[in-house]
């Protein structure tokens, strides 16, 4: 009798996907032994965008915090890495972690100010804050002011003495970072918190009424996202070995494209950023030579997807083929033969109400 209705999350697809994911991860770990320099560089870029897109998806797609100012934390992370390796002589790989902590700490006063704004004006507020950080770093002459600076040779060599070893180490750091980010998001979403987040996104008063502390929940998610985004920013600047306010705080590179990735892939689903990143890099591979045309196409594509397929490619796949790659959705499984049990359990439920 107690088997009448079961709630489950794992499906055959999600088991298969997990197995494929592990195999892929194994090959990615050993990739430096059979891939060339430029392929590794591209993979780190892909990891960065996948991590940024997944984090923005957690923020906007799950928590309803429509930030267009995440470039603030990419830039802060990048500048923190430069600051702590140049002035404090911290080892660069450790500095990636420290940069994340620095970005998260700066997210506290930032949130305190911009959480006063609601809806679309919250978005503008996040952007203004990012501009403030950009303009401030454009005044710091120790870090090259407006024209930026390169990572000094001795710091570069402290990553690893040879170029090949450096490439590999940066690659593994990137892989470790993206896996950690995805794991963190997965753990948050499949916990009770995940439910609280979607409740806030769907209706703030309703979430509050069932005991969710909206402000605190949003704040913690904003804080965690900022920290992880900062670490990704540090990784990006370590890979480029150069930083400038314009590039580090670029709204197009670190927010517009990230948003397009999430929207095209599917907002509010963990698969979304994964699919979107693949589409983004495929388009880039084919169309990057066309310069502005590529970005016009990307913008138009994002508009069309938002208007016609609000749940993106992942949402379409999930509806059309009932596919969920990550076991996050709770599914009700009814017993196949004993339909009486179902009727009974329904009666049972309604009698309890």
């Amino acid at each position, binding site marked *: 009798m107690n088997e009448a209705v079961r709630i489950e999350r794992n499906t055959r697809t999600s088991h298969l996907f997990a197995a494929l994911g592990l195999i892929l991860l194994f090959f990615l770990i050993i990739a430096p032994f059979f891939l060339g320099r430029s392929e590794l560089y591209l993979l780190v870029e892909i990891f960065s965008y996948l991590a940024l897109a997944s984090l923005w998806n957690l923020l906007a797609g799950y928590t309803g915090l429509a930030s267009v100012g995440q470039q603030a934390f990419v830039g802060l992370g990048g500048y923190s890495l430069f600051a702590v390796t140049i002035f404090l002589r911290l080892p660069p790989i450790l500095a990636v972690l420290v940069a994340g902590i620095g970005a998260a700490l700066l997210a506290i006063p930032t949130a305190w100010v911009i959480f*006063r704004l609601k*809806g*679309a*004006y919250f978005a503008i507020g996040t952007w*203004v804050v990012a501009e403030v950080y950009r303009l*401030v770093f454009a005044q710091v002459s120790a870090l090259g002011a407006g024209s930026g600076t390169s990572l000094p040779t001795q710091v570069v060599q402290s990553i690893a003495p040879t170029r090949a070893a450096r490439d590999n180490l940066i690659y593994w750091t990137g892989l470790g970072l993206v896996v950690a980010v995805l794991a963190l998001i997965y753990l948050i979403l499949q916990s009770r918190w995940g439910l609280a987040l979607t409740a806030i996104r769907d209706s703030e008063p309703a979430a509050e009424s069932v005991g969710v502390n909206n402000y605190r929940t949003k704040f913690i998610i904003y804080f965690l996202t900022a920290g992880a985004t900062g670490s990704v920013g540090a990784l990006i600047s370590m890979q480029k070995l150069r930083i400038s306010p314009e590039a580090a705080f670029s709204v197009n590179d670190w927010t517009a494209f990230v948003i*397009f990735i999430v929207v095209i892939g599917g907002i509010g689903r963990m698969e979304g950023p994964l699919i979107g990143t693949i589409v983004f890099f495929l388009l880039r591979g084919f169309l990057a030579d066309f*310069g502005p045309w590529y970005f016009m196409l990307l*913008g138009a594509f994002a508009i069309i997807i*938002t208007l016609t397929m609000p749940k993106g490619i992942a949402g379409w796949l999930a509806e059309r083929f009932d596919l969920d790659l990550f076991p996050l959705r709770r599914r009700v499984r009814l017993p196949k033969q004993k339909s009486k049990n179902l009727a009974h359990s329904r009666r049972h439920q309604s009698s309890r109400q």
Partner: protein
Amino acid sequence: MDLVATVVDGILLGGLYALFASGLSLIFGVMRLVNIAHGDLIVLASFIALVVTDHFGVHPLVSLVLVVPFMALLGYGLQRGIFNRALDSDILRPVLVSFGVSVFLQNALLQTFSADSRRLQAGNLETLHLDLPGGMAIGVLPCLMFLVALVVIGGLQLLLYHTELGRAFRSVSDDQQTAQLMGINNAHLFGLAMALSLAIVSIAGVFLGIRTNFDPSIGPTRMIFACEAVIIGGLGDLWGTLVGGVILGVAQTLGARINPGYQILAGHLVFLAILTLRPQGFFAKIR
């Protein structure tokens, strides 16, 4: 005396920012849309004015005869074709769509006009100035911009509070469903609001082009200035938007006086400070 001149400059600059902002304020009031492409549309208007002045050899202010109708038509089309489809209870979709429009426009301008800095040639209007007692001089152009801002905002107020169309705008702003029940065609009305917004954007774009150099990348910063003016003034109040523009303008000129690098930073910081102390702005009508 020097300080007074700086403040006067800032007040007059506020007129330009009010011109940037009043179109944005109008569409936010009517349909709660924050148009992220607003700044890129201002720059588009500057470029169209450039094409018109080059082609017909007319003064930039005369080019408005063509730029205003063109932008208004574009606005109506954009609203009916794209923005109307994105408006719903979810605030994220309009943001995403207007972000897409923004990136599209920036790159379309880049493709068509290259990244070079341009300027609209307005002859001696650029240098004419009035001598005031006490050795002060103020430019005719900034005064003209401020005057035009007053006229535009006054005109919008007249339209909103003394015409049938204005009544329709206000009723849709209050309650879309009920307005529709009373026989108002919301989709058409939103189109008209965006057309009006972009007509104002045309004027702002032409003044922007006369006052400073412009290139395809400067749109987003103008949009931020516009939003700051709207939020400082308080959502939904047009005279408040003018006050917001003036506060922003004065903050920027005072910042620039300390160090040219602080101009824009000072504006943002004053905005954030006001936000912290008075999140609803000074004259908010919409909550």
